[in-house]
């Protein structure tokens, strides 16, 4: 099984949307997919059709060491397993949040060990959704990941925070894929930032840039899958392309012999 962490250095980059969409698209490509939410916002399950925030989830495992997190997982029709963060009914939010951070800080390999206990087939994949980097949650996901997918919106702040993230990923020795999201070809700023990114990131920047599409939030509001409700949109095409790339990456990495880690 391979683990892919989806992180971003700015908020609103589209991490959760990409995690949820790619989970569905990879399942269509015959991978066993587990979408894990390592984010106390607890919103991932909105993207898979649930209308209320999940109660159970990973958070109890961190705080109390419970092993009921496997019951918290839900499965959708397309075969994707969704493992939410949970904690919707939690009252002492502030206190538990501090405790959570402390606990996660102490056991830096917590998520990695947890995922190691999940029995997915060789070409299976778990996708980890995270809050904005830097945070303990994102650090956990990065430590667990075989491939880090950095979502970069074409915004000045994203460019400004990117060097530090790159340095950290390099220090960790993680294989990294940068994906530009919500790119509007009509915007000169976007075009220029993309050129800048291409220049500095080189081949690490995915050729699949996901175009901005107003249909994405609309689909979420209607509780629909965007790629299925608007299959002809460019954004759906881009994400299909991205999913195909990831699928072939997973299969390549799984090949016995070639599995000796990616080139960072």
């Amino acid at each position, binding site marked *: 099984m391979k683990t892919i962490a989806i992180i971003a250095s700015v908020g609103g980059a589209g991490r959760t949307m990409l995690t949820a969409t790619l989970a569905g698209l990879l399942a269509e490509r015959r991978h066993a997919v587990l979408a894990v939410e390592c984010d106390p916002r607890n919103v991932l399950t909105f993207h898979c059709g649930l209308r209320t925030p999940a109660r159970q989830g990973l958070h109890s495992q961190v705080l109390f060491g419970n092993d009921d997190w496997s019951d918290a997982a839900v499965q959708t029709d397309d075969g994707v397993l969704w493992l939410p963060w949970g904690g919707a009914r939690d009252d002492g939010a502030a206190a538990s949040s501090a405790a959570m951070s402390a606990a996660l800080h102490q056991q830096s390999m917590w998520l990695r060990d947890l995922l190691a206990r999940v029995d997915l087939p060789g070409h299976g994949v778990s996708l980890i959704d995270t809050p904005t980097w830097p945070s303990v949650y994102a650090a956990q996901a990065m430590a667990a990941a075989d491939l880090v997918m950095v979502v970069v919106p074409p915004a000045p702040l994203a460019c400004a925070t990117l060097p530090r993230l790159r340095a950290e990923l390099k220090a960790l020795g993680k294989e990294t894929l940068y994906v530009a999201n919500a*790119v*509007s*070809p*009509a915007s000169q700023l976007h*075009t220029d930032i*993309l*050129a800048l990114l*291409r220049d500095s990131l080189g081949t690490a920047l995915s*050729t699949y*840039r996901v*175009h*901005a*599409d*107003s*249909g994405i939030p609309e689909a979420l509001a209607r509780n629909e899958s965007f790629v299925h409700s*608007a299959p*002809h*949109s*460019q*954004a*759906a*095409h881009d994400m299909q392309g991205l999913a195909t790339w990831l699928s072939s990456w997973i299969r390549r990495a799984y090949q016995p012999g070639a599995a000796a880690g990616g080139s960072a």
Partner: protein
Amino acid sequence: MNTRVATSALTRLRHTLAQQLGVDAEAGRGAWLLRLVFRPAPPGKRDWPAWWAERLGRHLRFELAVGEGQDAATWLKRLFLRPHRRRVRLSTNLRSARHHRGARRRSMLLGRIGHWLAPVHGVAGRAGHAVSSRLPTVPWARIGERVNHWSSGLDRVPHLKPVILLLALAVAVGFWTTPLPIADQFRLFIAVLVVMVVARRIPGRWPTMLMVSLSILMTGRYMWWRITQTLNFATPVEALFGYLLFAAEIYTWIVLFFGYIQTAWPLNRQPKPLPDDTYSWPTVDVYIPTYNEPLSVVSPAVLAAKSMDWPHDKLRVYLLDDGSREEFHRFANEVGVGYLTREEHRYAKAGNINHALAMTSGEFIAIFDCDHIPTRSFLQTTMGEFIADPKCAMVQTPHHFFSPDPFERNYDTFMRIPNEGSLFYGLIQDGNDFWNATFFCGSCAVIRRAPLMEVGGIAVETVTEDAHTSLKMHRRGYRTAYLRIVQAAGLATESLSGHIGQRIRWARGMAQIFRIDNPWLRKGLTFFQRICYSNAMLHFFYGIPRLIFLCMPCAYLFFGLHVFGADAISVMAYVLPYLFVSGMANSRIQGQYRHSFWAEVYESVLAWYTVLPTTVAFINPKKGKFNVTAKGGLIEQEYLDWATSKPYVWLLALNLCALVAGIVRIFTTQRDEPATVLMNMVWALFNVAMLGAAVGVAKEARQVRVSHHVPLVVPATLVLSNGKTIACRTENYSTGGLGIILPEPLELDRGNPLGVALSRGDIDYYFPAVVARNSGVHLGLKFEEWSYEKETQLIQCTFGRADAWVRWEEELVPDAPLHSFVEVIEMGYQGVLRLFDACLDAVEVAVMRRPRQSGTE
């Protein structure tokens, strides 16, 4: 009171009768009539009379166009006065027929016959499959490799090659001149045929050589027999026709042998790398000569030339406007290219370029016709050759056309059957390159300035200045190179008359060169260069031989002249092997670049028109003027180009009459030699097919587009005004507009604003536009704020892409001789039907005095 009684009596009578006859009392007249004659069927049996009556009624109603329930008066009227209805056309609409058949490579004729023979074919196919699956498979590819291995081993032995060639010549002379009884000649044919069939399966060049050698052997044998045995004529008239035919055959032999030499070993040259240091790259002037073409045709070429990848200070683009148009001057200034024009317009394009040569100073000159759009990689691909070889004077790349030529359009063979040009640019130029005899073709080429100035600039003595210029450079000992990589593409001529005009110019020019600068008479060329050049020129003299072949069966069928002094059996014994074996060898050599028998169609169309110009130019090379090829026309309505097709209609009529005469002859005067009559009739029938195809081409298919819409398929992104995106494909391009194929119909009205993004590599270019038309999935866009900068970006994303045309060869389908024979015959058949339709149209117009209706729906 009385009437009531009468009515009720009548009703009662009617009911009784109905019961007796077995009719429903309320049934119509038809049923009563039927039952008066036929008795109703017993229960459980089918009522055949009723069934037939119903079918007859339906058929009559259809034929007489009488509606359901119309009265007897209408029937009566329609019996004598037919309503006007559109005549059914006999020829099929090939485009829609192909559409229905899908992309399958099946012919219609073959499909129909195959349908009848399906059971037989199935059994035979299954049996064949069963047998072949038992047989061991032959590793053809490995055999090819092994042959290559042996040959390279043999090649290392010194002096072996000349010895082998001399021995081969001795054997060949023996083979050609040994007389054999007829039966043995047939046996020889079969033996050679078996070898050919086996060799065909082995890939590689040596099996090709084997096939060519066998073809030379069989042709030589035929020639020997033809010269020694068949030139005996009874009367002077027969001798006259006989020697005419013989002369035409000599021409085909020469062209066949020269062609074999020319295409013996296509060089398949690859681009050479340029030095890393761009400062050492030479300066290049790009010339784009124009005369009367509209700016919308020229501007893409200029903008693409400007965007070629080359150091900016070393690339200068010049627009050579021979029309001295103010609009062009403004355009050149606006986009920042040089504008050159001249006072007097002598020597057309050649003069235009020579004038520019004096005004510019670049070390190299790249020349593009004003409608050839180069890709960005053009210079980087071609210039390496000059740096690697200082004696290299010119590099030529193929001319590629992204729109169908008249043949392709009118017969719907675009991208399916290689066109006339693909043989030249796919094979002949590559073969020439092996002998260092690549011709300059006037466009898509780079020339070194020094050698060009040495020969006095572009040649002005002939109307094909391009080939003549390269001939002069070869004579000075310079080398030329050909890269079979499409690096530019343009528009094909639109109408058949324009196409023919262009070929006439080439033919005339080649005949001029043959007269005033014959490659055999002047010093400086190698033997094989002479052969390549003379074959190129001889090719354009095909007019007279072709016409002789088209008329010759008539000599026997009309007048009983024996133009071939041999009986039918020995003709078959010698002619068939020669035709079969050389046909197979040519099919192997030409492969995907020319399908068998299509050359005959192309030549048949052009033959008549090239006869006069070549003859005139041959007698007096000074006569003849330059006619510019018209491009970017528009054909609003389907029509038959009567003026162009007139000679073929006559020839067709002649051959059809000959067929009738043959039938008469076989039953009356020539009962003693039916084989000869039949053979001549088969020949005439073949001519009918060729001429039918030639006439059919003249039926100009309608072109739907209004201006220069260039077909163009690249991925694009639509950005709608509500922020949604659509992934789609472009369909065609015209200045300031773009046609889009949508994945699904969209609710868009005329004038709605939206944006379209095209990508060049990783970069998106965005073009704001409004909807110009929207029908189904076809969307027409008109760009807003259109500027030359935007147009440049668009060209860069589309025609300028380095990979824009890399796949052109992959799209060509390999030749299958039998299949293309059937296809050509079918085209001929369709052509005759088209002619028939057009005749009826013409008669209808003349009789009815009504304006011609636009073609089929």
